[in-house]
């Protein structure tokens, strides 16, 4: 563990100029998490991944490939991407099937357990921390760690949950990456905005051929029962996200100061309510 974590930025497109948002803890980004964790419709083509790899290399950045939960078709798409990655490249997996595939067929790549595998309560509506006791995080459970070991997973990713405390990130026997600024609360396979152009009878179905409307629109979410300190919530594509409150940012900062967080991932062009320029 290091007192100052590495910085990565999550991108789904190759930017026109160097994406190195300086100023986060005084350090520059050294890594790009390229791809998308939330939808198989956004898995990059081999050509786009190669372009990202070339761009990253020209800027001295390392690439981790971010991957979503997938059906059989999605797995087939990923199988075309993995051979493009340099040896020891990280693949962030959010599907146990992808993890198994990497372990069996692409052993030179490094699987990372994405935040969809490292489950915890992240309901932005909770009024107090005690509600999270309904289902405490399982990342520290020995049996879960044994599963990760079996797959050769040495790094985990986590969100900062609403009402977080620094202790939420205490050492767990693996390297820990944490997503800054924005977390996700829930996602679906059905995508509301992805149904925008579909005939009424075909909307909201599995495997919908969308027009990637999530690259154009996002929606702020307001609810009647919201409390004053509830994290602002928004939906992009099939996923509901929340912005970190100052208290959550402070919890992550304190955990970082204690050397518990190995890498911080900054949201890039897809995750925010407005795309970064």
């Amino acid at each position, binding site marked *: 563990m290091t007192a100052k974590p590495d910085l990565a930025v999550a991108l789904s497109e190759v930017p026109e100029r160097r994406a190195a948002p300086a100023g986060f803890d005084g350090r520059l980004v050294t890594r790009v998490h390229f791809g998308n964790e939330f939808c198989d419709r956004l898995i990059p083509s081999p050509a786009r991944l190669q372009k990202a790899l070339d761009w990253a290399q020209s800027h001295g950045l390392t690439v981790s490939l971010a991957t979503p939960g997938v*059906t059989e078709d999605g797995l087939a798409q990923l199988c075309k991407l993995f051979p493009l990655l340099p040896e020891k490249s990280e693949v962030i997996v959010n599907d146990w099937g992808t993890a198994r595939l990497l372990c069996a067929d692409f052993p030179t790549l490094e699987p990372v357990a994405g935040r969809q595998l490292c489950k915890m309560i992240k309901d932005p509506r909770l009024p107090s921390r005690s509600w999270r006791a309904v289902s405490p995080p399982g990342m520290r459970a020995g049996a879960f760690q044994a599963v990760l070991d079996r797959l050769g997973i040495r790094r985990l990713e986590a969100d900062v949950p609403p009402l977080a405390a620094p202790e939420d990130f205490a050492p767990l026997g693996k390297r820990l990456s944490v997503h800054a600024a924005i977390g*996700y609360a829930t996602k679906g396979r059905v995508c509301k905005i992805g149904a925008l152009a579909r005939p009424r009878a075909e*909307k909201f179905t599995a495997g919908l051929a969308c027009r990637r409307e999530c690259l154009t629109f996002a929606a702020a979410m307001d609810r009647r029962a919201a409390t004053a300190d509830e994290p602002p919530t928004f939906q992009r594509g099939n996923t509901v996200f929340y912005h970190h409150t100052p208290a959550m940012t402070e919890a992550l900062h304190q955990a970082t100061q204690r050397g518990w967080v190995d890498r911080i991932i900054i949201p890039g062009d897809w995750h925010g309510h407005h795309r970064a320029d």
Partner: protein
Amino acid sequence: MDITAPISALAEIAPTAAGGADEIYCGCIPERWRSRFAAGALSRRMMGNLTSLEDLGQAVEIAHDHGKRLSLTLNQQQYDSAQMALILELAEQFAALGGDALIIADPGLLAAIDALGLGLRLHVSSVAGVRNSQAAKFHQDLGAHRIVFPRYLTLDEMAAVTAAVPELEFEAFVLNDGCLFDEAVCHTLHLPAKMGGAICMDSYALHYDRDDGAALSPEDAERLADNEKAYRRWAWHKFSCGFSTTEDGLPYGPCGLCALSGLARAGVTIAKIAGRESPTGRKLKSLEMTVGVRDRLAEPATARRFAQALRRRPDYCAERYMCSYPDALLADDLEITA
């Protein structure tokens, strides 16, 4: 096609068995768990559970007396070490009581229970979100005998998995309980109604913006509003059409009955009726509908027509928002019959 049906009380087991279920599943939150983890959820449903090991033992006995198998749900997304230790004890107790299968979502728990060698069958819950053959094999590696498919898979997507891992059993939803999001990656709670309830039912108003910073055009605004209206209609169907039933008590809501023959062709051999928390009448009517379709599967077209005529609401079937497997309708361009 076997049918697995839920119970939440001992008195429901006999009528469920007599009604044609091949398997029965339940949750159980014994006193020992409640005293240690007051608010802790042992399974995905906070309500509708048996409350003691004695009841669980009786449940096994009654089910077996009727020639039915009994499964116990332990399907929270994740558990910490303290919870997992107690669950392993519960699994041993369930095996000693003669129980048949455990329904599990947490892969660590699955592996730990398999290591105990209890002789129980291990079913991977829909909450595990298995959507591809490698994920099925991963859980098989950890000891699974069966995969329960999550919602929102097409029949073709299921068929691709079942064909790749034929040694596993596969189960799929046919009725009830319409999560709008994906149980495997929904990290929210079903809050009390005054706090908003389930997040997919909360009173959120959405305000769309364009990423390029431009204002929404009138055309965009109209399309988005129409889409929102359609989504609310779809959600209403998924929430059992306002949690209603026909006059004779047949439940509305997520339904895959007319796709039952398609599910069978896709390699699914167990039809799951959801709704542990439902009233007894709703559970039994759901079973009655499913058995009625299952018993006609020798003639798929007859079974499909029977399924679509059950509730006498061809308009709901035609709208397709209540349909769990609309691809079955779209692919065959089926005529909806009353």
